[in-house]
Structures are given as C-alpha cells and as structure tokens.
C-alpha cells in the first residue's frame, strides 16, 4: 500500500472513532503535541494510559469483591480512572466511570459490579482501537509519510 492510501485509511479510521464516540477532542489535543521535538508523544501517553488502566482495573476488581465493600475506596479508584480516561480522550470509558460513580454514591453493590463490567468492556474496546490506530501510524511513518492533521469542531 502506498503512503497516500495509508493516510486515507488512517483518516477514515480516526473519523469512525470520533463518530462512534470512542475518542473525543482531547485525543486530538494530544496528537497536536507530537512534533519533531516530541516524536513519540502519543505512543508514550497511550502506553502510560494502558499501564495505569490495568492497575486501576485490578484494584477495582479486588475492591468490589470484598466481603465488606468499601464504597469510598471504590469511588476513589473510579474517580482516578475517570480522570485518566478524560485526559486521553477515551470518551466512552469516561462516561462509564461517571455512571459507576453514581452507583457508588447510592452504595448499590450489584449495580457497581455491573458497572465494573461495563467499564472493563469499554476499556478493552478503546484499547484495541488505539492499538490499531497506532499501528497504522507506525506504518505511515515507516513508509516515509507523515500523520495527517485532523480538525475537530
């Protein structure tokens, strides 16, 4: 595949991620911070997000499984996850966290368990999407092309 084609494929993929609500404008901000002085910025940020998320999900699963549930602790973890997903523009994960926090407030453990599953699913989805996107970017760069700039209103 030649570079132009790869770039068009990338643009199409990005557009779909926005249309489907996986990513929001915050992700575009991150892309704009990548340049010759900071060529690996997006990969670094996304990798850190994956690391953080996996740790938080582990902690959440543990907290939710306790005999005597500490809702404050669960809420603190979800708050953190909401923050990091918002930082990267992972909109659906962020929204799932918002719903989760409401149930923490209500101290509804069954709803919390269900929310945890939701959040996990959304995380796995966006992780796959981001990995695909970054792979496309690597291919473009390897072929000597540059990653297109996307506008978002």
């Amino acid at each position: 595949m030649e570079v132009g084609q790869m770039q068009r494929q990338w643009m199409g993929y990005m557009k779909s991620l926005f249309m489907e609500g996986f990513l929001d404008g915050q992700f575009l901000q991150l892309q704009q911070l990548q340049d010759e002085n900071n060529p690996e910025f997006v990969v670094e940020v996304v990798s850190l997000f994956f690391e953080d998320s996996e740790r938080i999900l582990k902690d959440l699963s543990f907290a939710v499984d306790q005999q005597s549930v500490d809702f404050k602790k669960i809420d603190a973890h979800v708050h953190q996850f909401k923050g990091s997903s918002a930082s990267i523009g992972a909109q659906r994960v962020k929204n799932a966290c918002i719903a989760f926090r409401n149930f923490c407030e209500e101290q509804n453990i069954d709803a919390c368990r269900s929310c945890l599953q939701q959040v996990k699913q959304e995380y796995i989805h966006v992780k796959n999407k981001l990995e695909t996107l970054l792979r496309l970017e690597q291919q473009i760069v390897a072929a000597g092309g540059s990653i297109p700039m996307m506008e978002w209103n």
Partner: protein
Amino acid sequence: MGNQEKGKGLMESQNSADKLTALVVDDDKLVRMIHQGLLKRAGVKNEAVKNGKEAVDIHYSGQRFDIILMDKEMPIMTGIEATKKLRSMGILSKIIGVSSCTEAKKQEFLKAGIDDYQVKPLTIGVLNSILEVVKARK
C-alpha cells in the same frame, strides 16, 4: 520583572525576556506527561513534581517559575496547602489551580491564593491564553 527573587532556575530568562518557565505539580503521571507536553510545545521550559511538598521544597532550594500548574488533590500536601505555603513565602508566580472537579472546593482554592482555576487536562487554547497574560505581565 516584579518582586520575585531570582534563583538559579531563572538565569535563562535574563537573556530572553520571552522565555517563560513553569512548574507542573500533580500526583498523576499521565497528567504530568500531558501538561509537560503542552508546555514543551509552547516553548516553555518546565519541571514537574508529584505533590505539594515537593513544590514547596523546590522553591526552598531557590528555584522560581513564572507559572505553576497546581493540582488540587495530592498526597502528603494538597494543592490548597501548597498554595498557601508558597504565597506566605512571598512567591508571586501565576498559580493556576487545576482540578478534575468543576465547582467543588473552587472557593477554598481561590482563597488559598491561586490566580485562576481550570479543569484538567488543560488544552492548547487554555494554556495559550494563560501564557499571553503572563507574557504581558513581564
């Protein structure tokens, strides 16, 4: 240049009045990375620390910054405590209180001495308007 003490951290700014410096204070590594990336792109020399105490200590060591991005909730010393401490030390830097909450404790943070309050993460646009104000002051 204002009433600030000049410490070793600000030597560069005497050569070029345009070169701003910033300190990122946040316990979240992801937020630090993003805010530092934002500052780097804007050409602002920057450092990062992970809680309020480290922010105070770096000032005790003599360093000074034009801008401080201060997170609110941090272990060991919160943004509110650190802001109060820095102001009592006579630090006149522009302190931007940064938080993931919109209204909660905003008043308390403002009272502690921040100049402005923003929801995190900052965007390029928000940072640019902050930088405009700081540059004009200089």
